[in-house]
């Protein structure tokens, strides 16, 4: 034990031990990746990725591409907000993509119009009593389905002590089965006009960012957020401190399920149809966003801001490869490397911090 740098018992102020917010690292990574694409773009395509390089418009940024970057990650981003909270409790949610699929089919069935181009709706699932319902009905059905799936996940994880990986893997298969069974694999289409507005245009982005702000506040300033971090950090300590750990876990998984249900509503509204294959592998994209954003799979560490930046990183990479006119397979290879790299870097930093303390 060195007594010169720390004083007695290591109890004097040591500037080198001040903590550097992890989100800044992720943000730096985002800027680095943008920088790489700008350079590559200037060399190979002769264009800028984010800035306006077209003389016909006088704006600073290439607004169209910015819009595409964020809109393509918004819906998975909403799922990632919930997955982030689950991972912070040291859990995992593999079911969100399938829950989205099942919820899409069910919610859309309550959003159908009775008359399409003067003919009765050919895709109607229910009888006339369930057509032309007010928009609030499919929204609540969608949120309800998501919450129900989340509560089942939560109960399995919290009370039966089945590992989260297995419990949500079961839900993943089950929910996908429900999605296919619901209409025997047929798409559910033709929503009401008001339902179609939910996910139109930039609405997914607005909803994503509003929810990100909301959950950032919830995770940092409410007892819910504090207990979520505490459980992921040291579950035994949380239990000994009087936190009702199982009840809290059910709440966290329910919120994650609700967000998956909400993204189903937005996605079906945007696409004007629901298909049983919707949301395939979204759970992995959402986990990737969280992990790239610095959320630790061991629990206790990470933040909503990190996940939002992680989502933007994925958005930039996806757009960047299209912009460089490279195939999608390169993009997946690079994403794979980035995920592994992000976790490796995080591990290394943790070790270094532990060695310093």
């Amino acid at each position: 034990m060195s007594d010169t740098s720390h004083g007695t018992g290591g109890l004097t102020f040591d500037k080198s031990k001040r903590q550097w917010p992890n989100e800044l690292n992720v943000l730096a990574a985002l800027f680095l990746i943008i920088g790489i694409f700008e350079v590559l773009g200037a060399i190979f395509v002769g264009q800028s990725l984010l800035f306006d390089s077209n003389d016909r418009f006088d704006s600073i940024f290439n607004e169209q591409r910015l819009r595409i970057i964020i809109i393509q990650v918004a819906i998975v981003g909403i799922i990632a907000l919930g997955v982030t909270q689950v991972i912070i409790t040291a859990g995992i949610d593999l079911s969100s993509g399938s829950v989205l699929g099942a919820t899409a089919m069910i919610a859309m069935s309550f959003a159908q119009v009775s008359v399409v181009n003067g003919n009765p709706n050919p895709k109607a699932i229910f009888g006339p009593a369930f057509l032309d319902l007010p928009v609030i009905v499919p929204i609540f059905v969608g949120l309800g389905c998501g919450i129900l799936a989340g509560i089942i996940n939560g109960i399995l994880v919290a009370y039966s002590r089945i590992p989260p990986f297995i419990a949500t893997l079961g839900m993943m298969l089950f929910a996908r089965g429900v999605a296919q069974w619901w209409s025997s694999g047929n798409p559910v289409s033709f929503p009401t006009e008001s339902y179609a507005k939910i996910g139109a245009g930039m609405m997914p982005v607005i909803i994503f960012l509003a929810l990100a702000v909301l959950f950032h506040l919830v995770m940092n300033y409410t007892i819910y957020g504090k207990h979520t971090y505490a459980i992921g950090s040291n579950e035994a300590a949380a239990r000994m401190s009087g936190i009702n750990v199982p009840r809290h876990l059910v709440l966290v998984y329910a919120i994650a399920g609700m967000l998956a249900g909400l993204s189903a509503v937005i996605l079906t509204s945007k696409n004007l149809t629901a298909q049983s294959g919707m949301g395939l592998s979204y759970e992995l994209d959402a986990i990737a966003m969280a992990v790239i954003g610095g959320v630790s799979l061991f629990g206790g560490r990470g933040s909503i801001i990190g996940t939002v930046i992680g989502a933007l990183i994925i958005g930039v990479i996806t757009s960047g490869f299209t912009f460089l006119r490279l195939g999608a397979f390169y993009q997946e290879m690079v994403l794979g490397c980035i995920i592994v790299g992000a976790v490796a870097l995080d591990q290394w930093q943790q070790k270094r911090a532990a060695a310093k303390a």
Partner: protein
Amino acid sequence: MSDTILETSDLTKHYGGVHALEGANFVLKRGEHVAIMGDNGAGKSTFVRQITGVEQRTRGTVVFDGEKVNFAGPLDAREAGIETVFQTLALADDLNVPDNLFLGREKTKWNFLGPFRVLDYKAMRADTIAGLEKTGVKIPNIKNTIANMSGGQRQCVAIARTATFASKLTIMDEPTAALGVQETAQVENIIRTLKEQGESLILVSHNMRQVFDLVDRIIVFRRGRMVANLNKEDTNGEDVVSYITGAKTGAEYEGAA
């Protein structure tokens, strides 16, 4: 208000056929610091676990603060005013000092929001600083997470937790077992501060020097039974060792073990 804070009579714990604790009659006065010593497996930790409600006793009564108590769990004991610093630290590594101090009993506002009620960081921070001052604990930056602190600092945080909440009795189970020399000194200073403030304390320790430095009275356990109850002034290290090893048994405990 009587001047006895804790009294156990015939406190007994059997694990199946193993008699881990047998008929312990123990009295602790308000403001008194008592050490519990004994060999491994002598029943020290078992004794503590019965008082703090971590385990349910086989037989006997516990009177705490003038009332017979039956704690269903450690939380009940904490609510009644018994704060325990466990051998394994019950701290959340990724949270900072105030968060850990108030874990499970956070100060909140806007309570109508239920599980989403808002944390009162300002009040918790103020109370944390007051608690740290009261115990004389110096933490460079209370906003640092526990993960970035040394073992001594962590133990200090765990102990400061007992001082932040007006507890009636503090129990420490080997608080310095895993610490270095300087960190041990720091923890011992905190214990002295608690003594000055009239806090009652039970200290489980193996460290003879520490015990003679800090406490008023020494209780020795051997093979599940109390075998000595010694005032610090009337005894010395050699004497205590002979009770621990079984060379001697206190007159009032003759035939016990």
